[in-house]
């Protein structure tokens, strides 16, 4: 996918960069195949976004980020709206106190293991719930199999 499509909070690895006027500068700043980029924050209207490359924070317009082809890193948390059905561990929850309380009441808290069903409902230790798109996008998770892999590797 293109860097511009990656949600906030995710970490990706660069696959390739299209040639353009700014590509030499992008390369100089570290956007090279194999390099990890963390998507930090986006401006109020979604454009531009802040990215962390090595230890610098660089902001890129979506039109510029679209030149960069990336893949999401295995250990990068993603919002529930971005992933397919499966088992996940909740890494962190965006949003204010009220949203967190609501999610907590149905069993979605940091550290909990939940299952995303095919019809977009969520199964937690408290039951199966229909969570709206907005709230769903605030829950950032890691796939359980990635965690298994990491554990096995140790």
């Amino acid at each position, binding site marked *: 996918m293109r860097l511009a499509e990656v949600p906030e909070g995710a970490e990706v690895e660069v696959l390739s960069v299209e040639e353009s006027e700014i590509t030499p500068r992008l390369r100089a700043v570290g956007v090279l195949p194999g390099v990890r980029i963390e998507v930090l924050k986006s401006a109020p209207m979604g454009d531009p976004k802040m990215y962390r490359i090595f230890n610098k924070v660089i902001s890129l317009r979506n039109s510029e980020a679209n030149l960069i082809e990336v893949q999401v890193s295995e250990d990068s948390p993603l919002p529930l709206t971005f992933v397919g059905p499966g088992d996940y561990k909740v890494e*962190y929850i965006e*949003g*204010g*106190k*009220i949203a*967190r*309380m609501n999610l907590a009441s149905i069993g979605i808290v940091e550290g909990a293991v939940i299952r995303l069903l095919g019809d977009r409902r969520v199964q937690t230790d408290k039951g199966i719930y229909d969570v709206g798109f907005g709230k769903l996008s605030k829950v950032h998770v890691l796939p359980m199999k990635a965690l298994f892999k990491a554990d096995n590797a140790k």
Partner: protein
Amino acid sequence: MKSVTITLWIMLITSITIGIGYLFEDDVIFGIIIFIFSTVFLLGFRELGKPSYSYRIAHIYVGSILIAMTAGYILASFLFSLVNLIIGEEMMSLKISDMLLLLLGVYSSYNIYRLRKTAIRPEKKNN
């Protein structure tokens, strides 16, 4: 954690009061500005659930900087207006809202000082 909540409340209530004060004194724009800064503290309550320390105090830190700067602006305006005495014009008169703001400015500076000391100790990122 508790001190964060208390500080947020103090800053929020005081700044709203000052804002209302300015509205009563017909300085609408300045009142709105103070209200914008109050919102910073208001939004700070949302962050209280988060596990990250720096996000929790960010609103107090930034809000205090904003209030301190505003108080500094009032102070500077006042001091510059003393020059008016030389040319026979009036100097700026400090109204109650102005003085409350200066006081809050002092407290804000204290907040900034206090928070900088604790934030200097590096913080772990996502365990």
